[in-house]
């Protein structure tokens, strides 16, 4: 049993922020959100020796790995953090999105903007096809199946002709010019902004879902699947939705990735990515979208920032993870909710 939060006098940054947030007016909140969004959009221009990555191009790092990690971690968080399905093959959705754009563009000339949605669609379809049989299992067994799924997609890509085999596919079209913004290979900024826009949409949908019935259903399933079923939650349906929606995010990101790098090979979609994204989710705080986003950003950022250490940076990176998971085993911003304490007699909320 943990101690009730009312007796917890430790300084808690999140509670401070929560208190402040609850005291703000609607206009202040809109302003705050706008400021945060603007900050992230101008972030590529804030390249300086302290914030920036000195050995590699900062806006490049912002797109990959940071931006990619963040949005994929948010997608995986729906599956792992919210519904409690341990997915070790998330890279499969990413690969499906990337190959959808590559194949449809090279063979049929489909433009990028259509392929993003088709990539999402195919990823969802794959999630449904895998989820229908696999989600009947739980825990370790399910984890092994998803692990296999991630590998199967990569191995299929190596062995099929239409995926270009081990050599992959090259000459994939970048997104066409939009609102006067050109998407060219040597400028990652527009891709970063595209990713950021996608991220905002995902966060919007996510926040709406988790505050309402689906969020409660997912959490109930994560906490105790049997009991959720006894309480009238259609567990299979919500697990499938979680899996498919997480997959949709992966698919969309995959298409964006293919549009930026313009050539993909199966080696871009190894198990390592699944593990890395899962690490982001756990490191940031499973089930808490802000924690997950922060964790993913940091895990994308540090290896680049530490690039001056050349190969030893991986050692420091590992050390950082070991230390962090010891200090904060539930992640940087754990999912534990802010508790409201009510007075026993009046039923009024007690202010601390």
């Amino acid at each position, binding site marked *: 049993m943990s101690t*009730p939060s009312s007796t917890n006098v430790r300084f808690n940054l999140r509670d401070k922020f929560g208190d402040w947030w609850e005291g703000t007016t609607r206009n202040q909140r809109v302003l705050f959100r706008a400021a945060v969004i603007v900050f992230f959009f101008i972030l590529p221009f804030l390249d300086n020796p302290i914030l920036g990555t000195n050995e590699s191009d900062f806006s490049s790092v912002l797109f990959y790995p940071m931006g990619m990690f963040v949005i994929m971690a948010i997608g995986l968080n729906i599956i792992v953090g919210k519904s409690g399905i341990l997915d070790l093959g998330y890279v499969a959705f990413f690969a499906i999105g990337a190959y959808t754009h590559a194949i449809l563009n090279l063979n049929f000339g489909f433009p990028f903007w259509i392929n993003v949605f088709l990539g999402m669609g195919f990823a969802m379809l794959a999630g449904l096809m895998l989820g229908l049989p696999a989600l009947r299992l739980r825990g370790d067994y399910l984890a092994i199946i998803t692990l296999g799924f991630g590998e199967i997609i990569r191995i299929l890509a190596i062995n099929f002709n239409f995926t270009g085999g081990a050599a992959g596919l090259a000459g994939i079209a970048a997104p066409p010019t939009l609102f006067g913004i050109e998407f060219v290979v040597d400028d990652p900024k527009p891709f970063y902004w595209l990713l950021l826009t996608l991220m905002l949409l995902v966060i919007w949908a996510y926040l709406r879902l988790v505050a309402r019935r689906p969020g409660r259903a997912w959490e109930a399933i994560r*906490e105790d699947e049997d009991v959720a079923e*006894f*309480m009238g939650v259609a567990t299979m349906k919500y697990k499938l939705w979680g899996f498919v929606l997480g997959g949709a995010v992966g698919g969309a990101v995959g298409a964006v990735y293919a549009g930026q790098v313009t050539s993909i090979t199966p080696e871009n979609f190894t198990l390592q990515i699944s593990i890395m994204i899962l690490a982001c989710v756990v490191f940031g705080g499973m089930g808490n979208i802000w924690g997950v986003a922060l964790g993913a950003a940091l895990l994308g950022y540090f290896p680049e920032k530490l690039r001056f250490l050349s190969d030893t940076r991986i050692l420091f990176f590992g050390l950082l993870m070991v230390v962090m998971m010891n200090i904060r085993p539930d992640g940087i911003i754990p999912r534990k909710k802010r508790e*409201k304490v*009510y007075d026993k007699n009046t039923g009024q909320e007690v202010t601390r």
Partner: protein
Amino acid sequence: MSKKLLEIRNLTMKFGGVVALSEVNLHVSEGEIAALIGPNGAGKTTVFNVATGYYTPTAGEILLDNESVVGVKTYKIARKGLARTFQNVRLFGDMTALENVMTGADSKNKVGLLGSMFGTSTSKKDEERSHKKAAELLNFMGISHRAGQLAKNLPYGDQRRLEIARALALEPKVLLLDEPAAGFNPQEKVELGNLIKKIRDAGFAVLLIEHDMSLVMKISDRVSVLDFGQKIAEGTPSEVQKDQKVIDAYLGVADHAS
């Protein structure tokens, strides 16, 4: 004679070679508190697990409001009106008390996932309904001051109450309580007895598994006794108390029964 809301006919449940229940007949009528007692391992919780669809019975019939629910999925049976609590409290620990109850109340709502995402008028109405229902039930169970606290941080007694509130949120026809008084002191048991009567008076039929005889004898209208998966007696509390088979099987010598 009042309407039978839950009727179990000739129920047999085998796990491999083990016969957990054999030809059991049970029923719960409108507006009554029925109790199911028996020694450990008699098959009481198995009755709950079979009735709620968690296990498919080997043979027999289960009727919920005259409708067969054998082979129906657990969550559908729950929505049709069979809610339960658990021998060991099983709450959604990382959710607040209010959210726990809202999860139960949600099962009566129509809104789907896309409706929730786009915030349709149905979704808003449903959210409001769940919230109101949950707040009412927390109040009914006397734990509204716990609404915003995480279920895992509540004191044990309040966790028990919260579990009942969550089950009631399904608006069940029959409420199945699995040893609700386990771990309570005598004073708390009396309070719980009154609470269960209050639940019955609010219009829910109750089927109660309980080990505390004084509680069972005080509040139940009818008692059924299971031993080794077979029903050995049924009747009013005083009838069952006098039954020689029951005394042999479970209550032991008479002076333990009080």
